């Protein structure tokens, strides 16, 4: 095995540890667990960044140099990288550690899938002609930051619904430790906005690329179509908030439905025939 894949498979365990401590923190309310979880996640992020950079270098050493964004393995790694990066920024800005229990597991699952699934090839492969484009990097980066923000929105949606289970005058400690619903709702909205903008940029960079590779900026390829469906779902969500003033539970549910559509855009489409088959 090459060194970068070793580092990256270790990152899987680091994120697992971080997720466990975030969950401890949420259940017990112990600040110590939260701080530990954050530190572990941060170490994981640094190791993962190093792993990605190493992989980039190694590809150049092999004479087929390209950014590590070119197959399913690399995209899964990058997805978890953007998710943890974005999450840690939010944690630092908002100063709440409860969200980690809802977000870091996604990063762990993505890493675990990349590292341990027999269907995911971890080897550095050269770029096939269709991927030899300057648009590869901007398209993948915008899409995956969008996915990451929408993953966080989904985590917040789950958190909102969980908080909604709270009953009675003196709810259990567990519920009291979750942030106020208004804050969760506001954060969900902001995450969706960020995700929506990146998704739009991802679709636009994708069509620019398609225009130079496939002969048409839009050809109703399943991945294109599903990204449009996802975009429409979040557009509907934002409109109902702006015009109708929808808040709370409805937003939470829509952020989860939207994320299901993101997941299908990312993975499900591979089971449909189309041009994006290399991802």
């Amino acid at each position, binding site marked *: 095995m090459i060194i970068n894949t070793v580092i990256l498979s270790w990152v899987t365990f680091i994120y697992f540890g971080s997720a466990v401590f975030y969950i401890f923190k949420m259940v017990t309310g112990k600040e110590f667990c939260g701080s530990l979880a954050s530190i572990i996640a941060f170490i994981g992020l640094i190791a993962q960044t190093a792993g990605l950079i190493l992989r980039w270098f190694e590809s150049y050493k092999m004479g087929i140099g390209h950014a590590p964004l070119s197959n399913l393995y690399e995209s899964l790694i990058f997805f978890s990288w953007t998710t943890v990066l974005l999450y840690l920024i939010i944690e630092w800005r908002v100063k709440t550690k409860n969200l980690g229990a809802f977000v870091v597991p996604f990063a762990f699952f993505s890493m675990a899938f990349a590292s341990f699934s027999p269907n995911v090839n971890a080897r550095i492969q050269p770029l096939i002609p269709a991927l030899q484009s300057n648009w590869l990097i901007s398209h993948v980066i915008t899409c995956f930051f969008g996915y990451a923000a929408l993953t966080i929105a989904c985590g917040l949606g789950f958190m909102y619904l969980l908080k909604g289970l709270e009953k009675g005058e003196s709810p259990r400690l567990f519920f009291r430790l979750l942030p106020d619903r208004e804050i969760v709702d506001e954060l969900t909205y902001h995450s969706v906005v960020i995700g929506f903008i990146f998704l739009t940029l991802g679709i636009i960079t994708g069509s*620019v690329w398609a225009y130079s*590779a496939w002969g*048409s900026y839009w050809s*109703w390829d399943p991945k294109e179509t*599903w990204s449009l469906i996802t975009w429409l779902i979040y557009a509907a969500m934002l409109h109902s908030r702006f015009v109708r003033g929808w808040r709370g539970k409805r937003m939470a549910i829509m952020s989860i439905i939207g994320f299901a559509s993101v997941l299908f855009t990312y993975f499900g489409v591979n089971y449909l025939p189309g041009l994006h088959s290399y991802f």
Partner: protein
Amino acid sequence: MPLKMKKIFFSFFSSLKLTITLLIIIAVASILGTIIPQQYGGGESFRHLSPGLFKVFNSLQLFDMYHSVWFIILMGLLSLNLIVCSLDRFPASWKLFTAIPSPDRSKPFENLPPESVILTEKDRNEVIESVANILTKRYKKIRRKDADSATFFYGERGSYSNFGVYIIHLSSLIVISGAIIGSLLGFQAFVNIPEGESTNTVHLARQKGVKKLDFTVRCDKFSISFYDNGMPKEYRSNLSFIKDNNVILEGPLLVNHPITFNGIRFYQASYGSTPGGKAYITVIRENKEENTLKVKQRDSFYLKEKNTKVKILRIEKNLMSMGPAVLINIQSPEGNMQFWVFKHIDKIRERIPGLFKKVPKFNPGRFKPYYFKLDRIESNYYTGLQLSHDPGVVIVAIGSIFIILGLFITFFSSHKRLWVRVDEQDGKTKISVGARSNKDPVGLKREVEHLLSYFSSIG
């Protein structure tokens, strides 16, 4: 249109319910489109499975859904909805943009939190001037009103943020109109050109027939190169564009690097090999005289005996999974004889002992005293080109840029409106700050805190 109908029309098309319903229908229809095969003849496999269902689907244009009448109607309704909504709501936004509310409103000062009020010992007139100075530095539109008991100020910033939504909606319409222009005035086509050949006739996409170009495209050469691990590295077509027998443009066409000629973009889309190809055959006479020939299908040549003619009947890249082979016919005074010449004949003989006895037709030494050897086969490639002419692209691109701009204005700017009142309370000068914003309460709070910190430095 009678007024009542107009009203009904407007209220129907300006409702958010319609927008959401349309978005959902379009989303569901699009999902269908990703499940039902949409390629040319994609419905063919369906036809065999269930002819009845095929008829229904076909009449609903489900095999070319995204270009079907009903899908276009849905898009049209969404556009109409967008236009009517914008027309409906624009006057209010315009009013917000242009109107400057009177500074001495009392509402903004109701229920002010204590931190939004500053008390100072300084002289009131002095404070008023300082406040005026600070506000002129920070805001563009400022109003002032002096009354007996108090002086009022109004300042605002970011009034353009009211237009963000309209920019997004208008640019979405621009994108849609660009797409319509492209589909009406442009075309998509494809053509396969074998190496060395040229054409000026291309097939229009979605079985709309053929189109004659006013120039000719020649494929001089097609080549593929591979990485060490066998993955394709490059597909390259050397093309010549010819007008009136003159080569006007020559160049390599690669994936991701289209060539534009006469307003038509050419893309490297696919490739394939044409049947036949070239074979290199070595003819050996009595184990010594060797002669290597390059032949095509249906070529023929004479052996040393002038009355013996060899004809190449077929060239196969892989005959019965035994590799390249050539079928030859030898016409001699003794009659006709046919046999296959395999490239890997030695390996085949090892695998199947007694092959020549069982199948004499596989014996390359069947015609004595000659022995035939197949050195290699070179296949003939054709290049698959995609052509596109789309005058709507520029419009779509401009629309997309403005969508991004609109998104940033909508989500990252807000119309902040601030009211400041300077009056007296218990012999002290009092500054009160009230504020309103169309969105982003956090940003507004920060703005007020900023202003208050300036004001407290006065006193």
